[in-house]
C-alpha cells in the first residue's frame, strides 16, 4: 500500500514537471486554469495595500501564476536559487523572460526591505509559507498533520507592518491540462508591536490549517521530498 501511495505521488509530480516545461516552451495558454475567486482578488488588490500571496509546495504554482495576470501588477517572488540547483523555473525551459522580479532572501536584510517597498507601492509579493529560508529565529512551531512543524513568520510580520492582506492560495492539477487555483483564505494581521515570534503563531497556524485541508483533499499534490522542518536544535 505504501508503495502505491509513493507511486501516485511521484507520478503526479512527474506530470506537474512536464506541464511546467510545456508551459515554458509553448506558453502559458497551454494550461486551462480555473480561478473562482477573481472578484475577491480584485477587491483585495483595490485596497492598494499591496498583496502578499502565500502558497506552498503544492500543485503547479509556477505555471498557474499566469492566471493572476488580470491583477495587472508587478509580481515579486521571494526565492533562493541554491548552487547546483537543477530545478528550472518554467520560463527557463523556453526563451521567455522571467515574469517575476526575484527577491533573494539571502540578500540585504533577507529581502525584507525590498518586500516592504514593493507592498508599499501596491505591488504583489509571492512567498512560500511552508519553508524556512532564514534562521531558526524566523520560525514558529505549529501543528500540521499530526506533527509539529516550524513555519516562517516573516511574511506575517511584514503584513503587520504594511497592512497588506495575505492571500493564501493553492494550485491543484485536476487532470489532463486542467488546473484549479483556489483562494484558500485571507489573513489580515493587525499592527503588532515587539519582536516575539509567538505573536505570529496564530497566523502561521491558520496557514497550516489551510494547507492541511488542501493536503487532505489532494493527498498526492504536496511535493515535499525532504524534511524541510527539521529542527536543528533537536539534532
Amino acid at each position, binding site marked *: 500500500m505504501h508503495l502505491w501511495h509513493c507511486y501516485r505521488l511521484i507520478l503526479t509530480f512527474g506530470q506537474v514537471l512536464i506541464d511546467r516545461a510545456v508551459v515554458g516552451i509553448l506558453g502559458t495558454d497551454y494550461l486551462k486554469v480555473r480561478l473562482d475567486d477573481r472578484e475577491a482578488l480584485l477587491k483585495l488588490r483595490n485596497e492598494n495595500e499591496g498583496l502578499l500571496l502565500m502558497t506552498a509546495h503544492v500543485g503547479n504554482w509556477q505555471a498557474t501564476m499566469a492566471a493572476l495576470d488580470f491583477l495587472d501588477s508587478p509580481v515579486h517572488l521571494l526565492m533562493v536559487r541554491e548552487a547546483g540547483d537543477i530545478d528550472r523555473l518554467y520560463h527557463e525551459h523556453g526563451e521567455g523572460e522571467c515574469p517575476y522580479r526575484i527577491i533573494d532572501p539571502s540578500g*540585504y536584510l*533577507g529581502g525584507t*526591505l*525590498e518586500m*516592504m517597498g514593493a507592498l508599499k507601492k501596491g505591488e504583489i509579493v509571492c512567498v512560500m509559507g511552508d519553508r524556512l529560508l532564514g534562521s531558526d*529565529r524566523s520560525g514558529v512551531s505549529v501543528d500540521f498533520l499530526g506533527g509539529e512543524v516550524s513555519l516562517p513568520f516573516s511574511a506575517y*510580520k511584514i503584513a503587520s*507592518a504594511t497592512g497588506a492582506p495575505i492571500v493564501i492560495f493553492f494550485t491543484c492539477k485536476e487532470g489532463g491540462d486542467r488546473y484549479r487555483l483556489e483562494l484558500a483564505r485571507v489573513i489580515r494581521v493587525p*499592527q503588532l508591536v515587539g*519582536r516575539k515570534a509567538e505573536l505570529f503563531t496564530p497566523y502561521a497556524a491558520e496557514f497550516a490549517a489551510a494547507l492541511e485541508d488542501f493536503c487532505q483533499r489532494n493527498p498526492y499534490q504536496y511535493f515535499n521530498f525532504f524534511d524541510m522542518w527539521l529542527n536543528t536544535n533537536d539534532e
Partner: protein
Amino acid sequence: MDIKEKLKKVIIEDLNLEDLTPEDIDDDAPLFGEGLELDSLDAVELVVLIQRHFGVEIENMEEGKPALQSINTLVAYIESRGQK
C-alpha cells in the same frame, strides 16, 4: 529629548533589548550583524518604529540601506526628512 536619544530609547523598548541602556549603543556601530546584532526581522520593526515615533517613512531599499547602517545614519535620515 533629542532625536538620537529618543531613537535609542525606542529601539530598546520596541525591540525588547532590555539588557541595554542608551549609553551602551555605539552611535557608529552597525545595527545589523555585529554591533547591535539586529537581524532582518528587526529591520521590519525598525522601519515601523521610525514611522510611528518620528513620522518618517523609509520607502524602499535604496533609501533604507544607507539609512539603516548605524544610529548616526538613521538620525541623519530622520533629520533629512524634516523630523526635528
